[in-house]
C-alpha cells in the first residue's frame, strides 16, 4: 500500500514540476475569461451561459489532463528506462494502481480548480448561487479517472502514445453516444424486440456508458438530480474502474517489457 501511495505522490509531484502543468493553468484562466466574454453577449442568460460554457471547459481540461498527465508521463518513464527500476521494486499491478492514483490526483486538482472558477463567476457575474456545479465536477472526475484506467489498459497492450490518446478520445466520444443510440433504437419501437433492447442496454453498460456521469443539462436547467442516479454512477465507476485496472495488471504481468 505504501508503495502505491509513493508512486501516486511522485506522479503528482512530477506533474507539478512540468511546464505543461502551468500551461494548463493558463489555459483554465483563459477559458474562464472566455466564459465571461461569451456570457456578456447573451441576453439576460448570463448565469446559464457561464455555467454551460464553464462545464464544457471542465470537461475539456479534464480530458487534456488525462492525456497529458495521465498517459504521456507513462511513456516518458518508459523511454527513460525508469520503468524497469520501478517495477523491479513493486508488483506491476501496484505500479498501475499508483499511476492511476497519481493521474487521478491531477484530474481532481484541475477539475476542482475549474469548478471553483465557474462557481465564483456564476455567483459574482451571473448572480446565481449554484453549488450543484460541484456535483458536475465530481461526475467529471469519475468520468475522466475511468478514462485514465482505459489509457492504462491501452498502455499495457503496447500501443503508442498517439494511438493511446486517439483510442481514449474514441472511447470518450462513443461512451457518450451509446445512450443516444439506444434511445433512438428504443424509440423506433417496432424494430426491436424486448430481448434486443435488453441486449443493447447491457452492451452500453459494458462498453462503458459515460453518459451516466453527465448531469450538465439538469444543472443548467435547474432540475433536481436524483440521488439514486448519483450513487448508481459512483458504484458503476467503482466496479468498472476496478475491472479495467485488474485487466491492465493481468495484461502487464503477461507481457514482455
Amino acid at each position, binding site marked *: *500500500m*505504501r*508503495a502505491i501511495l*509513493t*508512486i501516486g505522490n*511522485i506522479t503528482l*509531484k*512530477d506533474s507539478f*514540476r*512540468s511546464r505543461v502543468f502551468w500551461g494548463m493553468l493558463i489555459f483554465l484562466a483563459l477559458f474562464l475569461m472566455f466564459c465571461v466574454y461569451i456570457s456578456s453577449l447573451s441576453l439576460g442568460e448570463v448565469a446559464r451561459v457561464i455555467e454551460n460554457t464553464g462545464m464544457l471547459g471542465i470537461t475539456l481540461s479534464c480530458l487534456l489532463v488525462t492525456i497529458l498527465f495521465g498517459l504521456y508521463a507513462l511513456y516518458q*518513464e518508459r523511454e*527513460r*528506462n*525508469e520503468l*524497469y*527500476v*520501478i*517495477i*523491479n*521494486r*513493486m*508488483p*506491476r499491478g501496484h505500479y498501475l494502481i499508483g499511476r492511476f492514483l497519481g493521474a487521478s490526483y491531477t484530474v481532481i486538482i484541475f477539475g476542482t480548480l475549474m469548478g471553483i472558477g465557474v462557481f465564483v463567476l456564476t455567483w459574482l457575474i451571473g448572480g446565481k448561487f449554484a453549488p450543484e456545479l460541484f456535483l458536475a465536477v465530481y461526475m467529471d472526475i469519475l468520468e475522466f479517472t475511468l478514462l485514465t484506467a482505459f489509457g492504462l489498459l491501452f498502455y499495457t497492450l503496447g500501443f503508442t502514445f498517439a494511438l493511446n490518446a486517439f483510442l481514449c478520445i474514441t472511447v470518450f466520444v462513443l461512451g457518450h453516444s451509446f445512450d443516444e443510440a439506444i434511445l433512438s433504437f428504443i424509440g423506433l419501437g417496432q424494430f426491436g424486440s424486448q430481448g434486443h433492447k435488453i441486449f443493447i442496454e447491457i452492451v452500453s453498460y459494458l462498453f462503458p456508458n459515460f453518459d451516466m456521469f453527465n448531469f450538465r443539462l439538469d444543472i443548467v436547467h435547474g432540475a433536481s438530480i436524483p440521488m439514486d442516479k448519483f450513487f448508481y454512477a459512483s458504484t458503476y465507476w467503482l466496479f468498472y474502474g476496478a475491472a479495467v485496472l485488474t485487466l491492465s495488471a493481468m495484461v*502487464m*504481468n*503477461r507481457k*514482455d*517489457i
Partner: protein
Amino acid sequence: MILEVNSLNKQYMSKEGKVHALKNLDLQVEKGEILGLLGPNGAGKTTAVKLIMGFLHPSGGDIRLAGQVLKPSDPRMQIGYLPESFRPNPNLSVKEYLTFQCRLAHGNGRFVPEEVNTLLSLVGMERFKDRRISNLSKGMGQRVGLAQAFAGDPSMLILDEPTSGLDPLGKGDVIQLLLDMKAGGKTIFFCSHILSEVERLCDRIGILNEGEIQFMGTVGSFFEKWQVNNLEQAFRQEVLCGQS
C-alpha cells in the same frame, strides 16, 4: 551460489521470422563475486539481463535466486538494478529521486531518511543533492542511477553498462566503488563493452555471442585459451571463432 540460470531460452517473432535471441544460457554467480558478461552488439546481453530481471518471459529454462525459483514479472527486491541508457526523472531533485527509490526499495518496511545521505556520499553527489536532475550532466545522471541501484541495501547488483556516459575520472570512481561493494560482500553481475574495466573488475567473465555463451571462466583462463595477454585480442578471436 546466489544466482543460477538454467537452460534459459528466448525466442520471439519478428518481421524476419522467428528469432532465437538466447540459446540455452547456463550461468552461475557465486556469492561475493563479480561476473562480467561481454559480447558484441546484438549478442543477447541485455536480453539475458532482462530475462533474469523478469521483464521478459523466457521461452524455456529457469532462474533461481538463493535457491528459489523466480517467476517472470515478479519484482526482484533483493537485486539492485541499473538498466542500460537509464535516465532518472528530470523533474525531481537528486535527493527527492533517491528518497523515492529508497521508499520503493523498502516496500512496506521502515524507510530511514539517512539512507539517502549514505547513497549520496557513496556516489559523490552530496553537493548536488538539491539540484534538479534535468540540470545534471549525463555522467552525474549515471551516478544517480548507480545510487538508486544501491537503495535498500540489496545483496546482489545487476548493472547494464554501469560506466556509460562517465568521463575517465568518473569511470575510475565507479570501478573503485564496485570493488568496495565487492569487498563489502555484494555480488555483482554486469554487462559491458569496455574491456579494460572488465579486466580490472571481474573475477570471472562470460562471452556471449549470437545468443550463446562461448566462454565462461577467469580472465586468466581466457588468455590461456587464446595464448594472448590482451583481453581485446582474446575477445576478438573468440567472437570471430564463434561467427565462423
